[in-house]
């Protein structure tokens, strides 16, 4: 069952988030509404790269998730971002 667990997705999201911000102890509840465009673009690119590069068990495939700058409109708190990636992830086997 190699779809990412929510805990794995959380790790991927927080790793990307640390590029643009220092995180509180409970980052899942952190509001997502003060990001400037530069923060959003850097975070989104890092997040998409991290998803693609996350090692797939056994190899031969990679993870992906369709995200855009509009995705931020759906994310009130960091947990919303984690949930969206978790629910919309796909596996591409080449």
């Amino acid at each position: 069952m190699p779809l990412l667990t929510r805990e794995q997705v959380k790790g991927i999201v927080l790793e990307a988030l640390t590029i643009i911000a220092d995180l509180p102890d409970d980052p899942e509840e952190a509001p997502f509404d003060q990001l400037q465009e530069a923060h959003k673009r850097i975070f989104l690119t890092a997040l998409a790269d991290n998803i693609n590069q996350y090692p797939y068990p056994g190899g031969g495939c990679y993870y992906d998730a369709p995200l855009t700058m509009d995705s931020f409109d759906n994310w009130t708190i960091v947990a919303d971002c984690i949930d969206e990636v978790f629910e919309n992830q796909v596996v591409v086997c080449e």
Partner: protein
Amino acid sequence: MITKRLFVLIMMVLPHILMAQQAEVLIPKSIGLIKKASNKAELFVAITLPFTDEKLDVDYYRDHPNDKPLVSLAYKGEKPKCLPTLKIATGANTINVIIGNLTEETVDRFLEKENGLSLQFDTDIRFKYGSNNVYDRYGMITKTEANQLIADQLAFPADERTKFMTMLNTMYYYKNKVDFGVQPAQDSGKVSYTLSLDFQNIYKKSSLLKCETDSGKSGIKVYYGLSSRLSTNAKDTLNFLKVYPLIFHTSKYNSAFPYDLDLKIGHESNQVFTNRRVSADIAITTLIPNLVDLTSTESKRLRLKPILGLGFKGYYDYSKGINAFMSGQAYLNAYYYIPVYDRYAIIITDKTFYDFSKERNPKRKVMSTYSVTVGTEIPGTSFKVMVKYEDGKSDINYTEGRAVVLGLIMNLFSQKAK
């Protein structure tokens, strides 16, 4: 020998024959077109299966590549100049075709009736699925069913194409915002109203998408833009109007040093055009580590890293009442949002600059203009009540200005949907 080969052949074919007999033919729940505009620009055609608790075996196409559905792009009229790539992806309950290597032509023609490009399945969609991590059932969607679904329910109307291109544009360059404010009367003066505006747009949207085979095409995108602070008090020394007919922009976000690099060519003036110049301005913008922490230990807020820009501007100054001259400015821009405890915030913006001209900077001083905004959010809204203090010398008229502005900050272009 022949018997042995026949045995091997039968063993290879048998699972497929058995699967074809066992596979349950399912009717898809829905089909949709999902956009991706982040590290890549792609379109996902997602077929959702009629599952309740079941999930797809996402390893199935890796372990059984021969069962991976074949898809192709059919086109009416001319062959597309740049052929898109097609990949099959599996989600928990979706089979997706990811269309990549997009160009403006592909986006414009995709699913169009005239001269259009359409997606078609050339084989049935076979998959394995199950519940509770036990994948013991085989399913199938016939290619006839899938292609009928694409023909009947998949659409990419003009407004969605525009939305997709806008998503790509915002991924590269997007600083559009409008702020309104009220400036209280000072001494015997009148109350004045201020409008701060930043707006940019791209000239050629085709530059947002690049064919992978088109290696000679530059990653530089060309925009036009306007930046201003206007006031009902036209003589306010902090006012400015900057018009840039040419902005060359490039960026790299997926590196240890993410940055934006901009070259702006245009005209800068104060509101009444007594100070004016033609300028060429190059700047690099990046993030730097946080400098302070004013949150409490229980705070749940992100401490966003400050945005720092370094630049150099060459200009031809032909202001009213002076002999025109050429010179330059080195400058530093900063934006820092500092969360304070749980609900308050301080926003610091700064432009520190050094002008090389003896006409504008006879004392050879480093000058700056800055603002400090202290505010609090109105719960449940996108509004922020704030008091903004602006001070310093404008980099256009070099005159000391100071203002306290009361008002609402309202980012009209990036409000959250509530």
